[in-house]
């Protein structure tokens, strides 16, 4: 298996008003092609910062980071990844279809190709009927699905998601998690997923990275033994509960340092 994301001894220090904050400390991690990796930890543990480093939205202070065998910034310019933010961030003046085609326009895809891809990708997130609708006509969960479609529209095989369902309620979230898994199975993308929720992390991931703050670091990496095929009620099985327990232990251990 080839490595899509490979980080070795990554450090990142922010200069803030009252001194330096070490957002990432000695982060070493390999993500293989086709994996679904969740990052979980309390605020300030560096999970979002790490994702932003992979996206070349932040620059590490030291250490090496390669994405698709390139530097993170080269990978960004090669459009190696799609990024889903916490808020959908759809343009209110564009229809859902035109929102999804935004990256395609910027990357200079031909018109016909844009139209085809928008159709395909909206089908993929179950929004085919909403192509001509405006964002305000959609619920929050549908808007977030549209933003995932936007990240899938171009051929990036890496999907970076920063708490994409954090602002949604539990029921919508469960539904979207289920859809995300089937999407992942069909598209065979590599996913990096930041979350606050233990059940979400365990349910989605093939690998769970537990992090803790001050300094932001990895405290545990758990390879999930759960099968790839996961119905929602897998969350009641003993295996699932055991992994969730280990994640919780990892989070607690991280906290005992301060």
């Amino acid at each position, binding site marked *: 298996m080839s490595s899509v994301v490979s980080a070795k001894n990554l450090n990142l220090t922010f200069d803030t008003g009252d001194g330096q904050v070490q957002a990432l400390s000695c982060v070493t991690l390999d993500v293989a092609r086709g994996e679904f990796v969740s990052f979980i930890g309390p605020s300030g543990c560096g999970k979002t910062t790490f994702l932003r480093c992979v996206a070349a*939205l932040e620059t590490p202070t030291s250490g090496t980071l390669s994405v698709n065998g390139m530097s993170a910034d080269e990978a*960004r310019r090669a459009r190696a990844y799609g*990024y889903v*933010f916490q808020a959908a961030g759809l343009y209110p003046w564009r229809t859902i279809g035109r929102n999804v085609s935004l990256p395609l326009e910027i990357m200079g895809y031909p018109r016909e190709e844009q139209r085809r891809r928008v159709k395909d990708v909206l089908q993929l997130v179950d929004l085919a009927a909403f192509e001509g609708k405006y*964002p305000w006509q959609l619920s929050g969960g549908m808007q977030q699905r549209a933003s995932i479609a936007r990240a899938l529209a171009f051929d990036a095989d890496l999907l970076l998601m920063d708490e994409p369902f954090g602002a949604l309620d539990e029921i919508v979230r469960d539904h979207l998690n289920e859809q995300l898994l089937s999407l992942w199975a069909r598209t065979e993308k590599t996913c990096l997923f930041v979350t606050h929720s233990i059940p979400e992390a365990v349910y989605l991931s093939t690998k769970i990275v537990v992090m803790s703050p001050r300094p932001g670091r990895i405290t545990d990496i758990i390879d999930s033994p759960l099968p790839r095929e996961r119905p929602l009620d897998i969350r009641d099985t003993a295996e699932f509960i055991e992994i969730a327990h280990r994640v919780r232990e990892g989070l607690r251990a991280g906290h005992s340092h301060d």
Partner: protein
Amino acid sequence: MSGAPNIAAPGAGIGRRGRLWVRAALLPVLTVVAALLLLWYAGAVWMNAQWTRDQAARAGTEVTLPLLLQDTLSQERPLLPAPHQVAAELYDTVIAKAVTSKRSLVYHAWITLSATLLGFAIGTALGILLAVGIVHNRAMDMSVLPWAIASQTIPILALAPMIIVVMNSVGVQGLLPKAVISAYLSFFPVVVGMVSGLRAPDAMQMDLLKTYGASRSQVFWRLRLPSSLPYLFASLKVGIAAALVGAIVGELPTGAVRGLGARLLSGSYYGQTVQIWAALLMAAVCAAVLVGVVGLLQKVVLGRMGFGR
């Protein structure tokens, strides 16, 4: 279709809502207008009374209350003309005169309006260009806005004659100098509003476009410009009112014979207070219409773009 009214039809229910609106909004508005008119009449009697008394004293006659009321509200050159005198003057100069006549207020208003609109167009274009420069160029960001602010602290009444004289000396006369003064007043709110507007997209929106590897011009046309429109329209409302003030002020120092400013000036030369008030009211109506048109445009454009939903 059956005889029953279709309550789901487009426009259904508007009639009732319309009547409710009339009852809810018209009554307070009319009350305020009536109170203002009453105050105006009282003010006219009070301010013009001295002249009536002086005349009576000179003629050796007694001033009775009915006589006082009658005289103060019908003087030819009152300190404060009564509302009906201004209304009569407006009727005479707006409706009774052909619009091509030099005595028609519509003709004068159009002279001022054309300078206003040209100045507003120049000022808006200049304001947008400066804002684009400020947002994209660090040197302009540091240098332009202080000068723009400084430009607005100079009293326009002091600057207007200089602009007219300088432009006249290079052979530019008529509409353009007035439009320049209009533009001078109207570009400022547009710069300030557009700088905020072009900077309105948050960090997440900017990051998203960065992940696509978007160029600066792509960011500008696809994100910054559309995001700035609510700010632009708010500025345009201020700007167009300022442009009208600029056009009128531009007519004052030149001894212009045409335009609302010229009417104000000649009215004050000859003590024609009724004419001054009529011109002032006309200017107010023009301002209201201009701001109203921009407001309507704002509503339509922003509504279509899905802002504020």
